[in-house]
């Protein structure tokens, strides 16, 4: 079913893609083949400016950035690819490689990642919402009869519950929902997490380049962020890039 939907989506996409985007992608791949990885990454990025975001393009950007030696930027590209398509296993493996190259302990996939890797998010949410409303309407229609049939009522309630469960699972595992405040530290040499938003403030910990952060708030040039270990502090916004592009 998912494959059929993908094929259908691909056909629609191919029909709708502007010729300019196709040219940009072709040029990017030619640059990659010639070994100009940085140029290829730029070209892929320019292609994204004219069409909808695609996990595959972010993955290719990540590969070219990796070969150019920009491991932190590559990890950001792989994370973006995984946000768009959590089922893209090569991006997950490449992200792990990038983190190792940066000296960061690769994050062990959580149950959310495991669920997201097998569940198409948007489709599941639509199906879940549909099942929920069908179930609800079936319950109401069953009550229109003077004496509702228990079997119909049970089936209708189960449908509604199943739909609600599916929506809840998508809501709690979709990286675009769960990680909507996530960001990657791209600053060369990493950064210091400070207790207060001031240069002279006490240093709480050091952050490596490529570290994953959760942005909690922003005040001027400073952002208040939480690290993977739960440490909360301030750092300069320069070099902190949101996974979901602004």
């Amino acid at each position: 079913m998912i494959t059929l939907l993908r094929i259908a989506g691909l056909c629609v996409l191919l029909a709708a893609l502007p010729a300019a985007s196709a040219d940009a992608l072709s040029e990017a791949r030619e640059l990659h083949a010639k070994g100009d990885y940085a140029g290829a990454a730029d070209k892929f990025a320019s292609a994204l400016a004219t069409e909808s975001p695609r996990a595959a393009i972010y993955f290719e950007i990540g590969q070219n950035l990796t070969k150019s030696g920009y491991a932190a930027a590559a990890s950001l590209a792989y994370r973006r690819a995984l946000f768009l398509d959590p089922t893209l296993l090569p991006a997950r493996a490449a992200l792990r490689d990038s983190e190792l190259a940066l000296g960061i302990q690769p994050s062990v996939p959580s149950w959310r990642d495991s669920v997201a890797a097998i569940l198409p998010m948007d489709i599941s949410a639509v199906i879940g919402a549909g099942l929920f409303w069908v179930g609800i309407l079936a319950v109401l229609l069953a009550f229109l009869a003077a004496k509702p049939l228990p079997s119909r009522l049970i089936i209708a309630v189960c449908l509604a519950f199943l739909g609600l469960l599916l929506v809840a699972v998508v809501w709690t595992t979709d990286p675009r929902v769960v990680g909507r405040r996530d960001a990657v530290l791209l600053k060369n040499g990493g950064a210091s997490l400070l207790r207060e938003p001031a240069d002279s403030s006490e240093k709480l910990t050091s952050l490596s380049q490529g570290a994953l952060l959760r942005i909690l708030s922003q005040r001027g040039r400073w952002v208040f962020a939480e690290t993977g270990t739960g440490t909360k502090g301030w750092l300069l916004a320069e070099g902190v890039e949101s996974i979901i592009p602004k």
Partner: protein
Amino acid sequence: MRFLAIVFTLLSVGSLCAQEVSVALSKTQARVGETVQFSVTVLGVNRIEAPTTIPVNGLRINFAGQSSQVQMQNFQMSSSATVTYLVVPQFEGVFTIPAFDLRIRGRTLATSPIQLTVSGMASTPSSPSLPQSAPSVPRPQGGVDESQPIYFGELILSKPSAFVGEVVPAELRFYFQSGIGGQIGERPSFTGEGFTIEKFTQGARRDQIINGVGYTVFTFKTAITAVKTGTLSLPVATLDARLQLPGQPSQDDFLGQFQGLIPPGMFTQSQDVALETRPTELEVRPLPTEGKPTDFSGAIGRFTLTTSATPNAVAAGEPVTLRSVVAGQGNFSAMEPPILTNTEGWKTYPPSEVFETSDAVNFGGKKTFEFTSVAREDQTVTPGVSFTFFDPSTEKYILLTNTPLPVQAKGSASVLATTASPTPQANPPAPPRVTLPSATGRWTPVFSHQAFLIANGVAALVAVGLLGFVLSRRFARSDAGRRAVQRQQWTRLLAKARACEDATFTEVGIAYVAARCGGNILAFPSRLPLLPESVQEPLGLLWHMHNEALYSSGGLKTLTPEQRSDVLAALEEWHRIP
């Protein structure tokens, strides 16, 4: 030369206590009035509860202090606590300091008795343990023992010879006679060629009696690693100090005029001094080539190796972390990671390292290596781990191995083949071979899409409408619903009665009565007596007119305005009754 015979007498007082508690006198023979140090040492503890006085006829014994010490020798670390008493003989004779109880961690241990011979003769002085190069300093005039060095230093190595690269724990000790005060520098100066040295850690300050003279001892722990073979000359270590030494009042001093009346030690003079240790030699041997493994890790010492794997079941592409812990004593900073064996079918990465020291000089502790491994093919066991080190005590190379651990790992060869190498490659690689999805994505989840929100809003409206319909249907079917409908009918008829013309009032009134009787007008006579008396007469009139019209040919008659008013009032009153 003064010779002081320091005799430590270890006496057994029981199978357990004898192994832990020792007693000692700084002299077994003393003269009347001479102070003798009596110490009780307990191994393996750092705190003792001891009595403050020990009653012995002929000896005055007073508690002087307690100290604890940690020693390292031949890789063995030991701690001990010592309680010190000062014993002053009152008269000649042979005295026995009796056994007494000590409290240690809630346990009671007994000491051993020890003898002290007191005579009128002075004991023979000697100083065999003092370094020959003890610095010559201005001799104090009072408060210190002039016959002994006021201060000196020494370097204690845990062993006289070592292998190149082996870590040798060492201790710098600086002694000051107890009678002087002052300040010492933060750490000694100790540099030279042919060896590396760990940073100094200052040990606990303690008191020690040497040749009958009390010294305050400052210790600095470190570890020395020789980097070349041969005889290593360890240079002098220097510790700066500013001392308050006993001195004479100046000639200009007013009190100097009272020379002779001023007690010794009343005046002090500040002096900056540099305490030095003696140069020491360490014999450094090369590591034997015989039996040296090709994958020797460079570790020298005594170690153990343990390995664990987490998680023990992973999906394709997910890593298994092998955690190998090398624990023991030795050169942790120079050792290389253990080697993974049987790595066929695995993609392994260089390990991370974390060292946790268990002492002050990074000699003992454990180093944890974490290997990240991803299965290329389905695997049931992890790679094995091996580690080689050189044991200087046996002078042999030791190979430690950990067998592969059971694990369920799905292969991910296709995934790994597509990932890029972190290092740039010289030749242009082929474009990614992986089949990538071409579908477009969105940065916003479907929950925030307008179409999704509209569709759900419509569905919610339909559901709410249907719910209302269902509820109204079910309400209408209920008794309360039916009553409400009837009530609405009655209200409509009453309103009609109020507004109608006189000619039709009787008909409308009869219709109201019939409605109140459930449509059966014939039931009205039986209900009339149940109504309030005030309404019975007007409603009876209405009933009479209804019957008259029913059974005569004249039809319904019109009520007079007064009658209409009375009947309407009666209907209003009846309407108020549910």
